[in-house]
């Protein structure tokens, strides 16, 4: 009883088992609310049975193939955007190139419609269009986050490298690039959620290529809410899986990476 009371006191440290209990309790509450709110003839959310049926129908329709298509698109876009962002962000300590990275970061406020119009005139096929839109969109966010990481490097770390006879390029290599690789994985992890969300919209550009976005669009057209919720759950689960895979990779590869 005392421990339950502690859960309602601000800044009270909770044990690992306590956290599991609290999390499970919330999950049960959400499931119960879902079951109750979907009872009767009029209901906002589809019933658990409808979602189950939706899931089976999606599976039969090739959910795995669509999922693979989405992941492939995501992987391609992530690779190119990360490459572009890293080059631009790593060159930001050069005064001559800094305006470029700062401007790229500010452009994230530009509506996507403005960009897609010009892209459509340049690219030759729809798949290329999908990748390009995602690359541009992701790069702007990656650059913003990477610039924040670089700006947060304490001056003492730069001075430390300089005092060890590092040339300015060596400082860049040791302090900014090598020393912060784990931060790049974390930036990727944090921004992947935006990409994953964006993916669904971008996939609707080319229906023939398939993907989770196409499945959700088709389900929406026929008002099949069971399928929509089932798909959303799949998208959420895959997103969380990617997030935790990146977190485990960071911690596994870099023993010194202790944040989060």
């Amino acid at each position: 009883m005392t421990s339950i009371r502690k859960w309602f006191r601000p800044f009270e440290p909770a044990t690992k088992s306590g956290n599991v209990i609290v999390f499970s309790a919330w999950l049960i509450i959400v499931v119960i609310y879902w079951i109750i709110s979907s009872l009767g003839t009029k209901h906002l959310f589809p019933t658990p049975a409808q979602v189950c049926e939706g899931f089976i129908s999606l599976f039969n329709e090739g959910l795995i193939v669509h999922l693979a298509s989405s992941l492939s698109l995501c992987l391609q876009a992530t690779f190119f955007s990360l490459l572009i962002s890293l080059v631009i962000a790593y060159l930001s300590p050069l005064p001559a190139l800094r305006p470029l990275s700062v401007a790229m970061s500010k452009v994230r406020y530009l509506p996507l419609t403005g960009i897609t119009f010009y892209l459509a005139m340049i690219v030759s096929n729809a798949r290329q269009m999908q990748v390009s839109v995602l690359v541009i969109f992701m790069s702007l966010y990656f650059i913003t986050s990477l610039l924040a990481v670089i700006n947060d490097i304490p001056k003492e770390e730069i001075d430390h490298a300089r005092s060890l006879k590092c040339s300015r390029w060596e400082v860049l290599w040791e302090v900014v690039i090598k020393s912060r690789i784990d931060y790049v994985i974390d930036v990727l992890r944090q921004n992947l959620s935006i990409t994953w969300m964006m993916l669904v919209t971008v996939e609707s550009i080319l229906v023939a290529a398939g993907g989770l976005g196409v499945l959700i669009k088709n389900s929406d057209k026929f008002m099949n809410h069971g399928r929509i919720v089932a798909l959303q759950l799949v998208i959420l689960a895959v997103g969380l899986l990617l997030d935790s895979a990146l977190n485990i990779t960071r911690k596994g590869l870099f023993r010194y990476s202790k944040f989060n």
Partner: protein
Amino acid sequence: MTTYERRDTILHVENISVSYGNKTIIRNVNFEEKDTAVPGKVQGQVIAFLGRSGRGKSTLFRVLTGLEKPATGKVLIPDYSRQPANGQQPAKVVEEGDVGFVDQKYTLFRHKTLYQSLLFALRKSMSSTAEKHGRIMQYLSDWGLEKIKDQYPNEMSGGQRQRTAILEQLLSSGNYMVLDEPFSGLDVGNIENVKAAFELINRSHELNTIIFSTHDIELAVQLADSIYILGHKNCAGSDDAGTIVHHYDLKALGLAWHPNFTPQHLELVQNIRSSLLAS
């Protein structure tokens, strides 16, 4: 009183001023230190800088290490890469890396283990890999860091980090080492460790020179053979740029390298305290 002999100039600071915008941080800092030889033993130099907060100690240290370009003046050290001319060792202006620098936070490379950090510090040395390894292992053993050679900075204690930071600079920079408040925030045990490290550096080479700042006057009197007070010349006036207001040569006073803390040392502590309060 220990007999000693003053030899060549090892550090010459001439008319240093540093300004940021309209604000002058330090002005007209001048001092000179000579190599001190004590017969029968290897004796390096320990120079302490004392001063109240905001008197420009850290700024002066950045200039001494070549990390900051002064608005006026220069810092000269002997250039041992050149042959002496007319019995005098040619001098050179201090550049980045000539003087080791350990900051208050004992900053290290977060992505390098202790061994990797020391190897990196030796990267410009012409020695073979085996020689470098041997030298590193010898230092690690002397400084009691052998067991943690594969640990990253975030896995080390404060004292271990500090010793690593000192060792790194020692391997990279050679004879000169500047330490900004090396005793701040340390417990009694770690203070003793740093004192032992000073002793180790001092005894290992005649030209080794440690320059440090501290707010602990007794510790400065106990460790240093030369103490400079950095302060404001005119405390009440508008000129609030830091400069050297006093110099205590403990060698000349017969108080340097003393095994015990005598009443004369205590008297000097009182004098320094008054000097600090007036600056």
